[in-house]
């Protein structure tokens, strides 16, 4: 019986409706690019489904609204728990010209006042989130949960629309500035001269980092230093409850987590729903406070940032003095706007993905508990092995359903996917280079070029390096390699280690204060690791393709980031 059922869903499983099916998808779009930035490690069914459906909607929405002349958005499919993207390249010259007319009008408000537009959209998102939080998910009726499933999807859809409107409009200025500095001065965005102009911006991410540092100072003032120093994050929570001072500190801490506009609605893992958010498990942010205390007062985030900001203004002034007189205004405008691209690229995660994913986890886990109680699935978090349509079918009368034959099989497949890396490109073109040339570059898509796929490394044979990437933040570093695939393993990172990872995301930001250098497998000059590397002044090399497979934990490695060169010393 069970086997018969499996056959029926064979062509329709994993992420039903969004599974990559070679015969169908490759016939429609010739090249599919693996999005390692968002799907290493592999993604769950629930997450893959939501991402494929709504992230791709957001891209198509923004490309339509902004009338991006050469790209109509992306298609997204899931294969072996990995995310694959294909771009809707506009190839008809007349159509490109027609789209360009509207593009010029649609881009203008963003160029004129990016900050106000983004502030307005932030408010819109926060008001959507507050509404979602009004539902007491633990005591909701099945019908309320049924509706909540749709409310969450609606919120996710809107989040992606806003996300990409702001991202497309701001990244274009970065791309233009880079093109012009390359042409005029031979400076690319991998050069320190360029990167120094794009650092030291204040935004929500740093405000929250600073808050964690202040809570560390408060703990020291309240004589709680030892509680943090001597215990692991999980037991710090219990220890704090044993003293009045401890309780007082924890109450202040949780007040911030609950009352700040972002606060504890922040996922530990960036792109999936299967790890807790800060409010759900305060051990994560408590761990950050602990790290700050261990580093002591000599570690002054403010001073570092002020220094970088000062350096930025000097770099901008030096650059502008080289620009031709009649183009100074243009370059200055471009530099300011590109700085916003860099800053937005970092800050938006807090208001977009990290927040809404936390709310999705909260809502879907509640549905998971409802299904698990009635035996429809094994455990509450097996809900992440279902998709919203399947939840729709069973949530009203969970006691009558058994979904375990689906969740168990998908879970096994998902676990298996962790062992098998996905290939970088699936294409019916002659080679990867041809796929990039014909199906990626003509899209002119700033996001694909600068974040997801990134420029390919250009080895310099005379340097005889063992591995090549592109420069995220220049500088030299030598240290012990620490290969980290999952967030949980981040705690093993020792001060001065060279972090080697598939990629980083905003939840990894604090570790940049600790490490001597960062090497990633994926990403471009506007990916998270590159931006944070620059903000923290940590030598960073991105897009090595094979850092985590070539470098082993414990090996000594040397980085010459400006040249994208990595040396494995033993």
């Amino acid at each position, binding site marked *: 019986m069970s086997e018969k059922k499996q056959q029926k869903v064979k062509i329709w499983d994993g992420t039903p409706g969004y599974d990559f099916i070679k015969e169908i998808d490759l016939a429609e779009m010739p090249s599919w690019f693996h999005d390692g930035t968002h799907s290493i490690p592999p993604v769950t069914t629930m997450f893959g489904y939501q991402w494929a459906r709504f992230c791709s909607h957001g891209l198509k929405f923004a490309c339509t609204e902004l009338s991006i002349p050469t790209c109509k958005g992306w298609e997204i499919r899931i294969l072996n728990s990995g995310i694959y993207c294909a771009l809707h390249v506009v190839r008809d010259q007349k159509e490109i010209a027609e789209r360009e007319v509207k593009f010029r009008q649609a881009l203008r408000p963003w160029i004129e006042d990016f900050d106000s537009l983004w502030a307005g959209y932030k408010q819109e998102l926060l008001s959507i989130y507050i509404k979602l939080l009004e539902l007491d998910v633990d005591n909701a009726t099945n019908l309320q949960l049924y509706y909540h499933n749709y409310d969450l999807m609606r919120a996710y859809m809107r989040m992606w629309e806003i996300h990409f409107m702001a991202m497309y409009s701001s990244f274009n*200025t970065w791309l233009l500035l880079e093109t012009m500095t390359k*042409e005029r001065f031979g400076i690319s965005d991998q050069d320190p001269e360029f990167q120094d102009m794009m650092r030291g911006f204040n935004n929500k991410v740093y405000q929250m980092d600073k808050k964690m540092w202040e809570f560390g100072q408060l703990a020291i003032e309240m004589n709680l230093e030892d509680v943090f120093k001597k215990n692991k994050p999980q037991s710090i929570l219990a220890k704090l409850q044993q003293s009045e001072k401890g309780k007082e500190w924890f109450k202040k801490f949780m007040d911030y987590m609950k009352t700040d506009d972002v606060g504890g609605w922040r996922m530990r893992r960036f792109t999936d729903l299967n790890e807790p958010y800060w409010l759900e498990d305060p051990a994560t942010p408590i761990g950050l406070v602990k790290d700050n205390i261990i580093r002591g007062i000599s570690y002054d985030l403010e001073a570092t940032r002020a220094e970088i900001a000062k350096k930025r203004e000097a770099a901008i002034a030096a650059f502008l003095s080289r620009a031709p007189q009649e183009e100074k205004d*243009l370059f200055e*405008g471009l530099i300011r706007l590109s700085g916003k691209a860099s800053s937005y690229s970092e800050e938006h995660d807090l208001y977009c993905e990290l927040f809404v994913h936390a709310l999705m986890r909260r809502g879907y886990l509640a549905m998971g508990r409802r299904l698990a109680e009635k035996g429809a699935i094994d455990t509450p978090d097996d809900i992440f092995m279902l998709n919203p349509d399947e939840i729709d079918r069973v949530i009203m009368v969970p006691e009558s359903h058994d979904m375990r034959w689906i969740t168990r099989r998908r879970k096994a497949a998902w676990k298996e996917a962790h062992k098998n890396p996905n290939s970088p490109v699936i294409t019916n073109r002659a080679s990867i280079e041809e796929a990039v040339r014909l199906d990626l570059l003509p899209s*002119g898509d700033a996001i694909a070029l600068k974040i997801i796929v990134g420029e390919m490394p250009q080895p310099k044979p005379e340097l005889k390096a063992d591995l090549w990437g592109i420069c995220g933040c220049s500088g030299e570093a030598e240290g012990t390699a620490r290969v980290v695939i999952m967030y949980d393993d981040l705690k093993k990172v020792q001060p001065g280690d060279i972090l080697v990872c598939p990629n980083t995301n905003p939840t990894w930001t604090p570790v940049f204060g600790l490490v001597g250098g960062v090497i990633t497998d994926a990403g471009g000059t506007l990916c998270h690791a590159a931006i944070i590397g620059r903000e923290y002044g940590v030598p960073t090399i991105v897009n090595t393709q094979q850092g985590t497979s070539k470098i082993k934990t414990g090996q000594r490695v040397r980085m010459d980031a400006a040249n994208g060169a990595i040396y494995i010393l033993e």
Partner: protein
Amino acid sequence: MSSGKLIFRFEELGQEHNNLVGKKCANLGEMVRMGLPVPPGFAISIAVYRKFAAETGWAEETSHYVSSLGELKGQNVAIFDELSQNIQSTIEDKEVPEDIKRMVGSYYEELCNKVVIPNVAVSVRSSGTESRPGMFETYLNVIGIEDVVDKIRKVWGSAYTSRAIAFRVNKDIPIVGDELGVAVSKMVNARSAGIAFTVNPVTGDTSKIIIDANWGLGEGVVSGAENVDRFVVDKEAFAILDTYVGKKAKQVITRKRGAYWDDVPLEKQSIPCMSNDEIVAVAKLAMLLEERLGEPQDIEWAIDPESTPPNNVFVLQTRPAKVAAKKPESVTDRMIDLIAKRFYSP
């Protein structure tokens, strides 16, 4: 000017001869009169073109063909390409009459003797009575009488490039038009060359001189395709106010015959292609021209590696500078325009 004379040395000419030899030649003559460093050469008058067109039957043939086409305004641009091709190919069949060849030959020989170089390399440029920058063809590093005559014929034919035809059609000028004089000058095998504006062509600012320069021949700047050096010089004190060194990846240089785009050696790409003394020398020449000709000028100049400073800067031509009448764009407009053009244009 004695009637019947058809070819003139530059020193025989002045601005008053515009209708006789075209603007470029008349200006070259005027500059020689002013004592400015102009490469020696001679002007083929427009009458020579008329003689050629009449005697070979090309004038009649062309006007016959054009009148058979009817109204062209508003038609697809492809028609201009076709028209251009048809007309220019017929001129290739027309042998230049012997007496014209002989006349040109004697002036060319005179030039060779004057500069003491047998078969001296020359440039062959169009010289119409109206200034139409970029409309007609120029031939560089032309060597020997056969080639000079051939290139003169090609310049005449270039009155029918598709851009020139389209321009005339759109401006309601008869298609059969633009009878051209030709300037034949000794080639300056420039080390560096470029243009100088005595007015900012974008903003209209008349207080400074703007110099754009590249290694090699001036065509490496004029075509606007390359990233070049730019110097801004104050008109009062001749102080260099702004130096912008472009990354000059390509230059135009001469080979055995003709001129070609070539790579600039790596070590020369990011250094200025002229010294401060040379910048000031070009600026002073430009100012002199503006003062003498009474209006802002757009000048082509070249630095001759075979001459010694300060006499190594030559003026190749000058014309009144055109200032874009556009109102100044905002930075936002420029950004949008650049983004659209750079990344998303067909």
